[in-house]
């Protein structure tokens, strides 16, 4: 059963003078454990698609089912709760909470879930070790490099035990080495933990390592290919 199901999804932004069709009849299924990349030129609808499958926005028409739940059936508050338990986010600009340390950032979502302290501690250690930041646990995020911050963001995204992780241009602000390290980490998490990843990116380094590439052009899926990375 697909973890993400989109059927004939349209998204129109009509806040300006002219309505903008961001997505035009997109249908897409993502199976558990996939390592999927959404590519396309600027304005093709990548971010809109990620917002919809992240439960951050609602479609103008069509159906979005996430982990078996129809988004339309959820209230604003229920949607927040759904995101907390089902979705992990990695943002382009890291978007960590600047007043917290690396470990506190990772622990934060588990606190929101009301998980016991012991479990939180154990998970924080495991995840920061997995992303190679065990030594930087007590550092404020401002004391970390961009690559390190993005690795903390990956750990945070996984801390809630999500069904899938959405990463919006995760390597856009990273140098080659940091981007490579991050992709290695995400790939190994995908292999070892079977974590589902969906990326939006322009970065060819990410595209090369993806097993599935969904290409968007003018709000439509123009290509959907599955292959083994080189």
């Amino acid at each position, binding site marked *: 059963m697909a973890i993400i199901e989109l059927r004939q999804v349209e998204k129109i932004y009509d806040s300006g003078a002219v309505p903008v069709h961001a997505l035009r009849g997109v249908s897409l299924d993502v199976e558990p454990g996939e390592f999927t990349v959404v590519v396309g030129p600027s304005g093709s609808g990548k*971010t809109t698609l990620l917002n919809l499958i992240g439960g951050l926005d609602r479609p103008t028409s069509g159906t979005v089912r996430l982990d078996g739940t129809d988004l339309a059936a959820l209230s604003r508050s229920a949607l*927040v709760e759904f995101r907390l338990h089902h979705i992990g986010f990695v943002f382009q600009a890291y978007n960590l*909470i600047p007043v917290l340390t690396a470990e506190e950032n990772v622990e934060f*979502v588990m606190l929101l879930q009301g998980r016991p302290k012991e479990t939180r501690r154990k998970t924080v250690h495991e995840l920061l070790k997995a992303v190679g930041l065990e030594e930087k646990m007590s550092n404020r995020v401002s004391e970390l490099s961009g690559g390190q911050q993005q690795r903390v963001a990956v750990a945070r995204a996984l801390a809630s035990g999500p069904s899938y992780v959405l990463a919006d241009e995760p390597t856009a602000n990273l140098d080659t080495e940091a981007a490579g390290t991050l992709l290695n980490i995400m790939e190994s998490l995908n292999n070892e933990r079977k974590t589902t990843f969906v990326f939006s990116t322009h970065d060819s380094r990410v595209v090369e390592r993806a097993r599935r590439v969904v290409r968007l052009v003018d709000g439509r899926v123009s290509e959907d290919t599955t292959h083994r990375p080189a």
Partner: protein
Amino acid sequence: MLFQIAWRNVLRNKKRSLIIIAAITCGLWAGLVASSVTLGFSYETVKSALETRLSHIQIHQRDFSESHALRDTIPGGIALIERIRRLQGIRAVSGRLLAEGMASTAETATGILIAGIDSDEERRVTTIGQALIEGTYATGSKRHACVIGEELAEKLAARVGSKIVVTTQDIRGNLVGGSFRVAGIFRTDSTPFDGSNVFVNRREIARLLGMEDRIHEIAILLDNAGQLESSASDIRRLAPGPKTETWTELAPELRYISEYTEVYLNLFLYVIVFALLFGIMNTMLMSVLDRIREFGVLTAVGMKGRKIFTMIMLESVILSALGAIVGMVAGWGTVEHLKRTGINLATFGEGLRQWGYAEISYPILPLSMFEQVIVSIVVAAVIGAVYPAWKAIRLDPAMALRTY
């Protein structure tokens, strides 16, 4: 965790936090100091009036306050003094024989109020004895001694030892007079009082007026001013005939000063806090607008609106509480200093004394004022943060995440 994040957010933009903390500190410091000075001034004025002329309770013959007639004495007044003294909560009692008359010296003459007193009794009820600037208060120690106010002494060009002639009517309406030697000169906070009152030995003036063992007024000082009404009731039960009045009935203007000062000060404090509320709101709004993207992230990762709302409220309360604590400590310190030195209003002294107001004011800062400040600043912090917090929780996360 929420408190921890809120606290760190307060420390995040130190300059902005310090500015609003300083504004709250200054506002509350000024409010507390001004309020305590006003309260002290009001308290001193009432205290001075009670200690120099009114005392807590007075008893008169029922018609006396209207007629001021010599014949309107308290029936069995001298015996009543003794009975009142035995009541619980009574500190001191003094009987007075009162008459209107003229005082004259070789220089001039002026209208006066003659109070025949027992100086030992009176000393325990009023503080005229302590207000002497010259001479003695013991009107009974020498024959035909009198104590007059500084203002009257100046009018009559009299000094201690000077002789003044007191002319009045006796009980039968005859014009009578006697000469008295000035034994002491006092100075109170009321120029009119000092310019018109002459204290003489009660027995001597009673003989002159043909009114031995009769009195017009009994002045009563209580152990505890808070038991004014219950003590007045006890006295009314003991002596239902004459009229027993508390100082609030005798001098309603002083009661108004006392009561309205508190109302005015509450209002004053609320105006300050109301003004601070807008400062708090502005700071919190700036803080929220600076962090729109961050609130988008918090919402995206699953932080519910209720928690975001609480976090912003906590930030506002922490900021306001810090300002309030520093403001209260500074206010308390300033008031403690002024309590020791007093505030000398001598520049306005003559004008104030004309109205019976104290020249030197000692500020009063009751605990209730701190309680009021704490409650009102917390309320202001919460109200001031409602709109910014509401704005934060209404953010569309997808849009907030696109904000830089």
